[in-house]
């Protein structure tokens, strides 16, 4: 590898090329002009590989679009923003990516080196602001460090537990010329995440698995992050054992949602059978999940009688909130590969008779049909809308993103995913405004596929400006709004916890979404009558361009089942009976 002389701006694009990046999301500004200038020169010259730049309308949109791109394709998402407000606007997306372990590289411009610390125009302490919301970040102080830092940035973002990183480049460095070294010569000084786990520990886990009487697989986003091999190995292992499997919100799609061994999502709005199985099991096999508070409910009463195996690439996830018996630190694909090999060579068997009994218990719980709802004739039930959307789109390879709230939970419950990376949702941070820009990023990665953002009428307004991006870049994303005119999840909590005082959760003066779509040059569809739903969904799917689908639904519907704050898995509200939930003051404090 010959070391070449390049300007800082050229180095950024060269590093992108060396890391296989051909797509970036961004917004120009004073402190990144040299890099934008290189982009212009590049597209004018025929010698270089094309670099697609998607101009967003707000940097939050760039960060979520990069997330959507990364979450759907498994590649690193890249965004380019300017100093000051450019980068502070991107902070929400960086934090979102950190919480859900999504690999992003954010390049931010900074005021020239000699102005740093002088409160210059559009200056902010970018590395200070983004330190707690990135996996790692760098401020480049010397042009000759730049290429190394860029290569480290891609390495850190995508290795170990993935996450967002940021490289802050002062404008003078972008202009300076220095030596560019290639990625193959750069090795990070100290960061070496462990991929393989010890065989002895895996064997210990297999012994528990072979003797378990009431086991359950509890899988999360770590399986999807680990990649397609992990997904295939998980499916093989689950089928090999015949055990029931439940998944977190982030893990949906790793195991087929319509498979009989899949007992639905677990947690606060999980199915009755999934939560009861977790509560009663004698062995929990956690693969790439992190015992999040949405999952555990009251930690003291979480699955009280089970042994717990926990496979995670991040050692700090082990025993963080729930103590486990067999911690296995490693990458899901590597661990499962070793586990399956060992299972076969040691000829382990499961306890078939007991597993059969366990399934009959689970089938009893399934009979509760905890996701049932009564459609009726008058208004569209939100669950029905999603069910119809699923039925009418399941035969093509559809990608679904969501905003955050009731619609997100209904989508998770009623839309069944048979492949990984098709379900793109903000889980950890719970970012309203995520779904639409994320859908744009998905559409960029898969131009020919159907991409739907299942939205709420409140969330969609948080990043609606990106409709202009969709039109400019011809991204035919469909926005499916479950419109109940309330911040539905806020309203649900106010109903249950605050004696129905609906403080500021009703949205007056909503826009006419059909006209709004048309104002941008997209198509608008509004549906109120259940019998028009199918026809209109088909119309939406068939339209070649972005659509806002305003689905007016029942305003009073709540998401059930629900584990209220501070309760355990066995205290689910199912929403049907005249059940009353006494939520303790302790529970009210929780979110």
């Amino acid at each position, binding site marked *: 590898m010959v070391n070449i002389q390049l300007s800082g701006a050229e180095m950024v694009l060269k590093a992108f090329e060396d890391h296989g990046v051909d797509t970036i999301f961004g917004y120009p500004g004073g402190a990144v002009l040299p890099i934008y200038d290189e982009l212009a020169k590049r597209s004018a010259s025929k010698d270089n590989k094309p670099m697609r730049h998607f101009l967003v309308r707000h940097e939050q949109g760039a960060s979520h679009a990069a997330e959507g791109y990364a979450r759907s394709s498994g590649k690193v998402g890249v965004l380019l923003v300017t100093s000051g407000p450019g980068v502070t606007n991107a902070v929400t997306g960086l934090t979102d990516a950190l919480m859900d372990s999504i690999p992003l590289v954010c390049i931010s411009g900074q005021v020239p080196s000699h102005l740093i610390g002088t409160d210059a125009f559009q200056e902010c302490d970018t*590395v*200070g602001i983004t*330190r*707690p919301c990135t*996996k*790692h*970040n760098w*401020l480049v*102080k010397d042009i000759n460090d730049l290429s190394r830092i860029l290569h480290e940035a891609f390495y*850190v973002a995508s290795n170990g*537990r993935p996450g967002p990183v940021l490289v802050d480049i002062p404008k003078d460095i972008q202009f300076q010329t220095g030596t560019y070294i290639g990625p193959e010569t750069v090795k*990070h*000084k*100290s*960061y070496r995440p462990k991929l393989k786990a010890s065989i002895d520990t895996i064997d210990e886990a297999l012994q528990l698995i072979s003797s378990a009487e009431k086991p359950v697989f509890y899988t999360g986003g770590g399986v999807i992050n680990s990649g397609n091999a992990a997904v295939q190995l998980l499916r093989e292992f689950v089928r090999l054992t015949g055990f029931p499997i439940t998944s977190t919100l982030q893990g949906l799609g790793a195991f087929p949602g319509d498979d009989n061994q899949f007992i639905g999502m677990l947690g606060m709005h999980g199915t009755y059978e999934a939560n009861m199985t977790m509560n009663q099991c004698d062995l929990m096999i956690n693969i790439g999940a992190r015992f999040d508070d949405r999952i555990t409910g009251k930690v003291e009463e979480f699955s009280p009688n089970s042994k717990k195996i926990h496979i995670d690439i*991040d*050692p*700090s996830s*082990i*025993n*963080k909130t729930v103590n486990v018996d067999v911690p296995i630190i490693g990458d899901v694909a590597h661990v499962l590969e070793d586990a399956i090999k060992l299972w076969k060579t040691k000829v382990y068997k499961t306890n078939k008779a007991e597993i059969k009994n366990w399934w009959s218990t689970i089938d009893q719980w399934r009979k509760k049909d905890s996701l049932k709802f009564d459609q009726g004739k008058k208004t569209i039930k939100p669950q029905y809308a999603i069910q119809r959307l699923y039925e009418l789109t399941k035969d093509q390879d559809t990608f679904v993103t969501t905003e955050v709230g009731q619609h997100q939970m209904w989508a998770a419950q009623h839309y069944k995913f048979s492949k990984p990376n098709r379900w793109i949702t903000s889980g950890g941070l719970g970012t309203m405004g995520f779904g639409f820009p994320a859908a744009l990023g998905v559409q960029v990665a898969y131009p020919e596929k159907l991409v739907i953002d299942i939205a709420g009428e409140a969330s969609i307004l948080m990043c609606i400006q990106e409709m202009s991006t969709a039109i400019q870049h011809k991204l035919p994303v469909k926005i499916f709004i479950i419109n109940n005119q309330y911040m539905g999840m806020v309203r649900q909590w106010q109903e249950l916890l605050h004696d129905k005082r609906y403080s500021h959760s009703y949205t007056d003066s909503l826009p006419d979404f059909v006209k709004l779509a048309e104002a941008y040059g997209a198509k608008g569809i509004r549906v109120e009558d259940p019998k028009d739903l199918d026809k209109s969904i088909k119309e939406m799917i068939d339209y070649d361009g972005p659509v806002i689908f305003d689905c007016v639904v029942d305003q009073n519907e709540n998401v059930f089942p629900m584990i209220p704050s501070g309760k355990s898995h066995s205290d689910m509200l199912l929403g049907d009976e005249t059940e009353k939930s006494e939520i303790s003051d302790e529970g009210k404090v929780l979110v």
Partner: protein
Amino acid sequence: MEDNLTKNTVSVLVDNEPGVLARVIGLISGRGYNIDSLTVAEVDAEKHISRITIVTPGSEETVNKLISQLEKLVPVSRAANVTFEKKGIEREMALVKILSTGEKRVESMRLSEVFRAKIIDTTHDSFVFELNGSPHKIDAFINLMKPLGLSEVSRTGVVAIARGTEKM
């Protein structure tokens, strides 16, 4: 979490790069831990490795969680609990200024000999003592100096290392 709030000494080996200290202490405050003392200095000039020593109150369980969070930081290569009870050696240095005359002045000097403190500055009305030892010993010295004209104290915070052949 208020059970067994003992003091723990945690040693952290980090790449000496800009912002690494901010990262470490930001993590500690961001995750709700406290810092009683903190020292930091480069210990390997060739590899640019610094050693940070943090004294933090908490149960063994919470400190173990802190250690795995610290090890998650990209520039952190190792973190370990080197608390005295875990067979670590802990030392600290203090500079102690006494303002007094007459019998009190003589008494402070006599006590300083017992503690093997050095007098590194003096006037007719003052002493500055330099004292090395365990944090415990320094606490005891300072307490004894209180009625003898204690004016000002500056302490380095704890540095620690494991006994015997054990290496971080």
